[in-house]
Each structure stands twice: as C-alpha cells, then as structure tokens.
C-alpha cells in the first residue's frame, strides 16, 4: 500500500497562501499594471497627424510641462479640488455625526443612511445634468428668487460658472465622505465620550479631542475618494462650466480626439504622478492601516 507523504504544515500553508494570492495578482497585473505600463511606454513615442510610432522622446512631457495652459489648468483643477473637499468634508462629517451620535436606534440609523444613498440610484451624469435646467436663467432657482423678491434680475452666475461646477461636485461626491466617516464613527466606543464628559469636557472639547482624532481614518479615506474623483473628472467641469473651464481630464480627452495618443499618455502619466503624490502626502497625516 502506498502511503502519501504527509505535507509539512508549514509548506502546506505556504502553498495555500500562494494559491490565495495568485488570482488577485493576475487580475491586478492584467487590468492595472499592464495598462499603466502601456501608457507609460506610449508616452515616450512620437506622433504626427494620423499615426504614432515607437520612439524615445521627451517632447511630449516637455511640451506638456512647459505649456502655460497645463499650469493654468492644474491651478484651476486644484481650486476645484480644495473647494469640493472642504464642502464635502464639512457636510460629510455633519451628516455622519448626526447619524452616529444623535440618532439612538439602530434601525433608524440604517434607514436614514439608506435615505442618503437614494440619489445614487440614478447615474452620475443624470444627477449632474438635472442641475442645468434648475440653475438656468429661466430655471426654477431664479424664478423662485425673483418671485420671493430676493432679486430683480435672474442671477447669471448660478449656471455655467465655477459655482455650478463646485455645486455639482459636492452633490456628486458628498456621500463618498459620509460613508467612511459614518463607518469609523460607529466603531467609536461610546464610553469614551461618556468618560470625557465625566472628566468635565465640554461638547466642543469632546468633538475636538475625542471624536475628530478617532474619525481621522474615515475622513482620510473619504478625502482620497473626493480628491481622486475631482482630479480625474472629464465631464462635470465641461457641462457645468458650459465648456468655458478646462480641467486636466479635458486636456487628455482633447488630445485623444486629436489623435495625439502619445501626448495624451504623457499628460495621463503626469496626472497619475500628481494624484499619487497628493495621496502620499495625505497618508503622512494618518496611518490608515494602523487605524483600521
């Protein structure tokens, strides 16, 4: 009778680990690393009006980084990022705080949380476009303001302006702040808040010294979502500014439509590096892994 040699448990668990990790590695390799490698490669290629060809040139980067349009656009995009982040963080924190600490019963918490997700039942684009008739010159907002006597003339800056862009961004992405912040707040041990109160802390002191420090990972995860989404946006800026503002995403999409794929690849690599740097800086403030 043949006996199977029993596998050494250490080796066995090593094999299991390899088996478990392989699918994810393959998926990430094929769908994340390979495309990025392709983009980086093409970004050094040359191009003419109707084709692009292998080459090793820094022209694409040189043109992109020395163009005044690039800098103006990055500045504008950063402005949108900062404004959107501030509003999303304030709104997200307030909503999450209300849900986590003011609403006492769990079923109500869950029900209200689901209410927050209702706008997400329709597509991004529809939620954005529906602002246009609302904010327009003859839109609901202006007719309401005029009939209330707040203003005589329709407010022009409501639509096709930076205001409209930021408004749409905040509307689209506030929930990305609410969810992670709510999640971390729910894990805060309520007895910590009670202990702080017993020790004589005011409501504001509790917020600043107990709740905010413990919610940091949630705020950071939400911030990463908001920053990356706004940095990479293509259509919101175009539609809400009426095509009058540029964004980094639009530069890339313009280059693609003009068949300048190597230039578009170089712009994408620069954007990718910028976003990675921003996330790297944000990670400096909070060690998400340790806190989770």
């Amino acid at each position, binding site marked *: 009778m043949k006996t199977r040699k029993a596998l050494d448990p250490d080796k066995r668990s090593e094999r299991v680990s390899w088996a478990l990790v392989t699918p994810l590695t393959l998926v990430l390799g094929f769908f994340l690393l390979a495309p990025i490698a392709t983009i980086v490669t093409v970004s050094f290629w040359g191009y003419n*009006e*109707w*084709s692009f060809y292998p080459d090793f040139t820094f022209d694409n980067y040189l043109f992109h980084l020395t*163009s*005044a*349009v690039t800098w*103006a*656009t990055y500045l*504008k995009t950063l402005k949108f990022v900062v404004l959107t982040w501030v509003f999303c963080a304030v709104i997200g924190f307030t909503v999450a705080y209300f849900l986590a600490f003011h609403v006492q019963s769990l079923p109500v918490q869950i029900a209200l949380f689901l209410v927050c997700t209702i706008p997400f039942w329709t597509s991004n684009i529809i939620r954005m476009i529906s602002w*246009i*008739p609302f904010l*327009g*010159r*003859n*839109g609901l907002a202006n007719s309401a303001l005029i009939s209330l006597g707040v203003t005589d003339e329709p407010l*022009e800056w409501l*639509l*096709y302006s930076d205001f409209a862009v930021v408004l749409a961004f905040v509307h689209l992405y506030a929930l990305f702040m609410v969810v992670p912040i709510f999640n971390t707040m729910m894990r805060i041990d309520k007895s910590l808040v009670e202990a702080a109160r017993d020790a004589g802390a005011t409501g504001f002191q509790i917020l600043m010294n107990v709740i905010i420090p413990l919610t940091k990972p949630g705020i950071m995860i939400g911030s990463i979502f908001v920053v990356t989404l706004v940095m990479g946006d293509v259509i919101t800026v*175009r539609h809400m*500014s*009426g*095509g*009058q*503002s*540029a964004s980094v995403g*639009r*530069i890339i999409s*313009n280059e693609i*439509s*003009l*068949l300048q794929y190597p230039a578009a690849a170089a712009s994408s690599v620069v954007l990718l590096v910028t976003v990675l740097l921003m996330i790297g800086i944000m990670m400096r403030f909070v060690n998400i892994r340790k806190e989770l």
Partner: protein
Amino acid sequence: MTETTEKKGLSRRSMLKGGAAVAGAALGSGAITGFPTIWAQNIKNITLRQFGTGVSNLNEVGQKVKEDLGFTLEMTALDSDSVTQRAATQPKSFDIADIEYWICKKVWGAGNLQAMDTSKIKNYDKIVGIFKSGKLTPESVIAQGTAPHSVGFVEGPDGKTFAETETGWMTLIPTIYNADTLGIRPDLIGRPIDTWAELLNPEFKGKASILDISSIGIMDMAMVVEAMGEYKYPDKGNMTRDEIDLTMKIFTEAKKNGQFRAFWKSFDESVNLMASGEVVIQSMWSPAITAVKSKGIPCVYQPLKEGYRSWGGGLGLSAALTGLELEAAYEYINWYLSGWVGGFLMRQGYYSAVPETSKEFMDANEWGYWFEGKPATDVIKNPFGDAMAQAGETRDGGSFYDRMGAVACWNAVMDENQYMVRKWNEFIAA
C-alpha cells in the same frame, strides 16, 4: 415601389431552387430597379462597409439600398476626428468612406482611397458646378477655405496630388452639403440682425455662444473678426500664425469680458442652450434650428450680409476595393445620385449634389420650399413625419442659389492646424 419589392421576394425565393430560374429572376429584378446587371445573382452576397459622420449615415439609406440594389450596406457613424483617423490609418476596415472635403484634403495623401472614373458615373454631367469648376453659376466667385472642387480631382487613378480642373478622376462623389450661419432667437433680440459682428456685440453679453470644435469654430471666429472690420484675411481657410493669434486675442478678450454663456460641442447642447433662452445668438447647424422650432420656440437661421460658412461631404472608395465589390460600389454611387437619397436629404434641409434627380422624389410644395425658396403651400414635413414649417412660411435665406451663391468660406484644414489647435485650447482654458 410595392411591385419591385414583390418581384424581389420572388427572385430571392427562386435563388434557393437554383438553376436557370435564378438567372431569369435576377435579370428580371435587375430590369425593374433600373440596373440591369448580369451578375445580379452574386451581388446579394456582397456587403459594403461604409463609415462616416452621423449626418448622412442613416439606416433608411441602408434599407433602401437592400431594397433597390440587393446588396447589404453596413454603416458606422463616428465623429469627424475618428472618421479622419480611420480613413488615414485603417484602409482595410472600410469599403466606402463618407467624409467631408476638408478631411479628404487631410487624408488623401495617406493613399487609402482610390479615385473614381467619372465616365462610370451616370449623372456626372448633372452634378452642380460647385463640385466641378467651383462655380455655382458662371459668374460665381470661388469662396475661401477648402472649396470642394479644389480637392475633388486628381490626375489619374493613382494620383496623389489634387488637380486644378476636371480630369475625369474624382476623389469624392459629392453627396450632401449646406450653408451654415448664426442662429438667433428673434423674440428675445427684438431687432433685425444682419452681420456676423453681432456675435460679439456687448448687447448680448452673457447670451452668446460659439461651438467648441476648433476646425469649425475658427472659421466662425474669422467671419466675425472680418465683419467687425478688425482684419481682412487673405484666406480664412489657411491662416498664418499671426492671423490665428489675432483672431484668438479678440475672442479671448470677449470671453474674459463675459460675452459667452457657454461653448457647445454636440448638437443637442446647442439646441438646449437656444431653447432654454440661455443663449440668444450662436453658431448653429441647420437641423438644430429645426429642433428648436419644433418645440414651438421661435428660432431663425439668420442670413448675414457677409455670407455663409459652408461644408460638404462625399463618398470615397477604399483603395482596397476591386472586382465585383468595386462594381457594386459604383452601382451604389450611381444609385446615390439617382434621386431617392437626394430627396430624402433635401427634405431635411440639406442639399443634394444632383438636385434635378431629387426633384422627382419631392412634391411641388417641398421642392418649392426647400430648393426654390417659395412660401410653403401646405405643412412641410421631414421624412420622419415631423412638421418643419407651416403653410405660408419661407425658408430662412431663400432659394438654393441665394444661399449657396452667398458662401464666403468652406470648412477647411489649415497648414498651421496644430498651432491653431494649441491656441484653441488656450482660448478654452483662458
């Protein structure tokens, strides 16, 4: 028409039986559609792949080809940038390219298209002068930009450079064209508009728009700059760097002063801007005007004293087409010019390259309204059944000769195209 279809059915059934019956029926069906060809039995297996911009790539045309000619026409609609790219880089992906003349100028050099023998084009003599001599009537002045006749001919079947005159070898067979101008909301403006310069009139501050497609937008800008008396371009269709800078400077200043409400990129955006009253004067395309009107909102395609900016498209054959497929492509082109498609397009407000043949496919009221600029005697409907005009209305700009006779420039691609695009992006980001 019904008779034809029935006979077709018969011939298709007989095909299954094979033998002499097939040849007989196929010949019979050929005779009825007016294209008697001995190889009609083989042609049904042919599929021609056509691609182009959305304007004339209509499913109705594909269906009618199947009905009248028996072969299959596969159509792909793309935006003009993708069309250019495909014509230049993927010759094997298409049989027929439905492209604009300025695209032809850009891609002909790539050698993916073959010139057509005009002796095989039955209605060649009836094609309007714009596409042959460049002159609509013998007295006409040739407009600036990429005028269709200037890229319409080559020296021979393999010619790479464009010929000055009719050579018998055509690059594109013209299919569809029109004259574009500014669209206005007469109810919100309340006074006559007669010049391109009004686009930058401070009176319309925050209520004007221009299209964000650089190759067309720059031409509209040039019309405005010239109308304002700022500069007279030797050729709007081929500006120098200085001229591009000057044009952009004037418009960037206007943008910074808040002249523009928005820039539009797609057809529906231009319709919404106009219909909602956000914009009262803007660059517009003819079908967009109709779409605004069909909502019951007054909108006029305003003829202006400086003239129109015009565009035209045509069918080109892939260099890879040979033998039976090539014959089928010629058959298709002859059919295209024989009138049905022309009528179909003219009833939407475009013009056909051979208007005489289209006349047979339009009633007297339609012909009078669309071509002759006469008041409609009854409701004018497009091929899809939507009302385009009521009795008593006349077409904005008048007759074919009034409109196409007043073309100031054609859509064009400039030698300094790359520079222009870069400046355009700066303008948008400004």
